[in-house]
């Protein structure tokens, strides 16, 4: 049965893919209203070919220097997405605090993930296909999780896993004391460190006790509020004085997830979305003008083991008029790599506004499935 579904999906997916390739201008991304991971890149028309993700200050400097070295002068294309939290020391941080729990007050820190805000930056040079002018785009963005609230059970599990992890460390420390006298560090420091390395190298060959903390942290929180802002400026003809405002975007996504059964991964999800885009790249009578767009809406989704069914309503207004998108969506995960996606409903605007899709998504579910408008 599974093979039949895959075969059917491949055939239908190929047809959908082929069709969408011929009508690229009529496609929308199902996820393009949600808070983007890297808001700076979202504002650009071109996707950076390579995005650096340095996770230390040294790696960050190295990535910038490499860009300079590989070009004849200033870098022409550079895109980076990083989390400053990982670059600096945190003298008073504890693991519980990092994981969003205040041990002194015995309660979770709902703003605890704000420290993990990420910054995206892109500098991309391209040539306008019509005017043949050189365009230098600079964009910067910030993405953050403002609020995270976990369930009582998840917090209890987190504390239990922390207790288990600390007990294991205490056990390892005691085992190391039995293996090597810690006073050896005073008389022969080199030998002491050699023995510490040997003790842990020997442990690696034995079955390790599982640390559950990451699994618990990866569980879906009950409530999250994410936000992002991005700003883009562009320069024409490689001239600093010929600078123009490009785009500004602000996104927010609120997610409430209720576990339908504490023993399974079935959820009912409610999303509220808000987006504001100010677009200054529109040429009218050879002058750049700015247009504003506002999107508000919500989505209700039932998420079962391999199946999710949802309904989405988004209202969009710009400086002149208002319109809405209303559609139902269905996803079925055949395997971790293969996801069937279907959507039907009305898209924004009054013409060509039918959303009708049945397609297949290969690889990890990115949320960037393309829906063809008919």
């Amino acid at each position, binding site marked *: 049965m599974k093979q039949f579904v895959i075969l059917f999906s491949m055939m239908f997916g190929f047809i959908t893919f082929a069709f969408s390739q011929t009508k690229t201008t009529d496609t929308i991304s199902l996820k393009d209203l949600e808070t983007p991971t890297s808001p700076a890149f979202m504002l650009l028309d071109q996707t950076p070919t390579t995005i650096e993700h340095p*996770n*230390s200050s*040294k*790696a960050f400097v190295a990535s910038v220097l490499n860009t300079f070295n590989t070009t004849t002068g200033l870098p022409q294309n550079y895109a980076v997405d990083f989390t400053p939290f*990982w*670059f*600096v*020391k*945190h*003298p*008073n*941080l*504890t*693991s*519980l605090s*990092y*994981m969003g729990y205040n*041990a002194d007050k015995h309660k979770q820190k709902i703003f605890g993930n704000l420290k993990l805000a990420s910054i995206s930056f892109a500098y991309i040079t391209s040539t306008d296909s019509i005017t043949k002018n050189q365009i230098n785009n600079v964009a910067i963005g910030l993405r953050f999780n403002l609020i995270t609230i976990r369930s009582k059970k998840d917090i209890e599990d987190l504390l239990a896993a*922390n*207790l288990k*992890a*600390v007990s*294991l*460390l*205490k056990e*390892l*420390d005691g085992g*190391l*004391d039995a293996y090597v*006298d*810690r*006073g050896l*560090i*005073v008389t022969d*420091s080199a030998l*002491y*460190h050699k023995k*510490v*390395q040997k003790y*842990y*190298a020997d*442990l*690696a060959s034995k079955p390790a006790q599982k*640390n559950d*903390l*990451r699994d618990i*942290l990866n569980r879906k929180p009950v409530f999250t509020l994410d936000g992002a802002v991005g700003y883009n400026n562009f320069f024409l003809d490689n001239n600093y004085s010929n600078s123009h405002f490009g785009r500004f975007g602000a996104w927010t996504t609120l997610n409430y997830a209720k576990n339908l059964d504490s023993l399974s991964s079935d959820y009912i999800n409610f999303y509220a979305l808000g987006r504001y885009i100010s677009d200054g790249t529109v040429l009218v009578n050879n002058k750049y003008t700015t247009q504003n767009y506002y999107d508000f809406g919500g989505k209700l989704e039932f998420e079962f083991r391999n199946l999710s069914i949802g309904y989405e309503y988004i209202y969009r207004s710009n400086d002149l008029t208002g319109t809405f998108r209303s559609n139902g969506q269905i996803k079925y995960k055949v395997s971790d790599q293969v996801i069937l996606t279907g959507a039907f409903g009305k898209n924004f605007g009054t013409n060509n506004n039918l959303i009708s899709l049945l397609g297949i998504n290969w690889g990890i579910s990115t949320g960037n499935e393309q829906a063809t408008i008919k």
Partner: protein
Amino acid sequence: MKRTYDTGIDTNQITFGVIVGTVGTAYTSVYLNRSGGQNTKIKESDINSANIQDSIIGDAKTLKNAYLLSRTTIDFSNINPTLWPNQVNIVVIRYHLAGGFSGDQVYNQDIDDMDVVLNGQILVITKPIKLL
């Protein structure tokens, strides 16, 4: 790197504490190593953190010529393995001694105190402090 602390006259009450700043799950134990090789555990951290609150560990008379041996073990299983290699650069450990002739002293961990093991999942920091 070995550090020294002058405890001063015999009646001085010496206090000691440890503060560990890290994202990883951590545990600290402190032993007193007397001349002759006798080790006695005098402090250990609790389940909330690897910190050890400042408290009296004895008077100068009994501590003189002994070593404080503090060992902190940190497990980074709770973060993405791609972040493990840099943790050795951003972990912070402060050892605080007070009450002796040297007054208030804060020592940080040194590079040669650290052992990175299990591909960076575990970091072991051992700090010897000689009490004069």
